[in-house]
């Protein structure tokens, strides 16, 4: 079960709008899914450690060498809005 309010809050954290029309459907769907995944609460995990890397590898490094960058002109052209060499967005208000 998840309230519409909570759905809105979580969606907002992820920068997603939810239409009022969609809100009840989404709450229902999410509620069903959340109830389903809650099953794991019943599992006795005992001493099990959380698994982040399936093969347990450690210490993967690279050396401190400079490698050539991509063509920044090319990349800037792909920016939805740019100004000179800067990527442009609406004013950030602190």
């Amino acid at each position, binding site marked *: 079960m998840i309230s519409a309010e909570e759905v809105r809050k979580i969606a907002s954290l992820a920068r997603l709008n939810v239409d009022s029309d969609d809100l009840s459907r989404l709450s229902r769907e999410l509620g069903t899914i959340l109830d389903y995944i809650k099953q794991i609460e019943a599992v006795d995990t005992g001493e099990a450690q959380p698994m982040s890397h399936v093969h347990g590898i450690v*210490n993967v490094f690279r050396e401190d060498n400079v490698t050539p960058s991509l063509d920044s002109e090319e990349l800037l052209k792909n920016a939805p809005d740019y100004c000179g060499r800067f*990527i442009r967005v609406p*004013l950030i208000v602190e």
Partner: protein
Amino acid sequence: MKDGREYEAVIGLEAHLQLATSSKIFCGSSTKFGAEPNMFIDPLTLGLPGCLPVLNRRVVEYAIMLGLALNCEIRPFSRFARKHYFYPDLPKGYQISQHEEPICERGHLDISVEGATRTIGIKRIHMEEDAGKNIHDLRSSSSLVDLNRAGIPLLEIVSEPDLRTPAEAAAYLKTLRQIARYLGISQALMEEGSLRCDANISLRPVGELKFGVRCEIKNLNSFKFVERALEFEIARQRAILKSGRPVAQETMLFDGVNGITRPMRAKEESNDYRYFPDPDLPPLLVEESWIEEIRRWLPKLPEQVKQELCQVYGLSAYDAEVLTAEKAYVDYFYSVFDVCSNAKAACNWITSELFGALKRAGLNIERCPVPARHLGELIKLVEAEVISGKMAKSVFTEMWISSRSPQEIVKAKGLVQITDEAVILKLVQQVFNENPAQLTEYVDGNDGLHGYMVGKVMKAAKGNANPKKVNELIKREIARLRGANR
């Protein structure tokens, strides 16, 4: 209800140190400062689909070095975590940082303020990537994003809330800076942004153990700003508490122009960064052998160098303090000493003449036009009495301008001090001949005319005669003449 109690400040600092590696922490783009905007771009820096991070080993080395220098425990097992928030200068929508398992913990740093030493606890040190930069253009109502800085390695150093005064806070930062520069891991310049600081401050009644409500202060761009901001904040919070009201937990920005702190615009729902271990980066297993290896070649720290300068080189504590302010000064001193083997002279020349000249020219020692070995040779010339101390000062000036060696300059200008007795004697006799009246007076008993004679001889020698010899010879001649008169 007014509060008549005395309050003490409880201050903790969060410092960020930008590391001086050649490439970024998770990719090979350059970390060079001052380039054109968006010059050092690669898939990871841009947060392109499909990009993956690979950890720069040197960053881990530097983290361990700092951890050792700050007496920390180096965690055998640590991980990277993703810290999520949305901001235009954060390309992936998350920052790769460390959360529950930072690489270093539980250390301490000794600081000295007005002669007193205090030990400040270090809670943790962790590695993370820097974000890009935003420039705000009010005219066009837009912000401009430059991602060169995104991905540059940072070490975040969190202190325990052990600091009690703004002066201590500044001293802590300065010591941290000094250590970072001695280790060679960072430029640690606040004005360039390679050392940044946020402060947390709360007040509590003296004797109280519980912490009061704390405020965070951001935008502290210099040591001065840190002190002033904390001073203002202490006054502000004290006024509130004394009037019986509670302090509100806020994040403040320091306004350097007006010297005040003011609350930042309320941020979105209290930051839920949704930390979780980064699945793209395997964990770190730091073995004892690696730590020992780093410990072996760890550069000497300021305290150690200071002690050496006093005990081995015989400098005063004060002199050692001045010289160790920067590792570059000490390195320069060692080089001068290597040539002239006179620690005291080397120290004096560096701290007075050299520092003076650097200050006037607005240079730092890395750009000093006088190579250390030249200064060493100059000192040797003075000791060998080839030139006088006074003459050496003008030779130094010439060295500064021309970057030529002292020997070259002395030779070119014919400044070699005259020490040959025969030559000086000739000059003395020349002066005696040219000043018969004074000579007679002197011989008759007026010793006050000694200085006059010395002056005349020095003038005749164009200032180049060895003063000691001049003195000796004049006195000898006068004595001879006086004896002859009997």
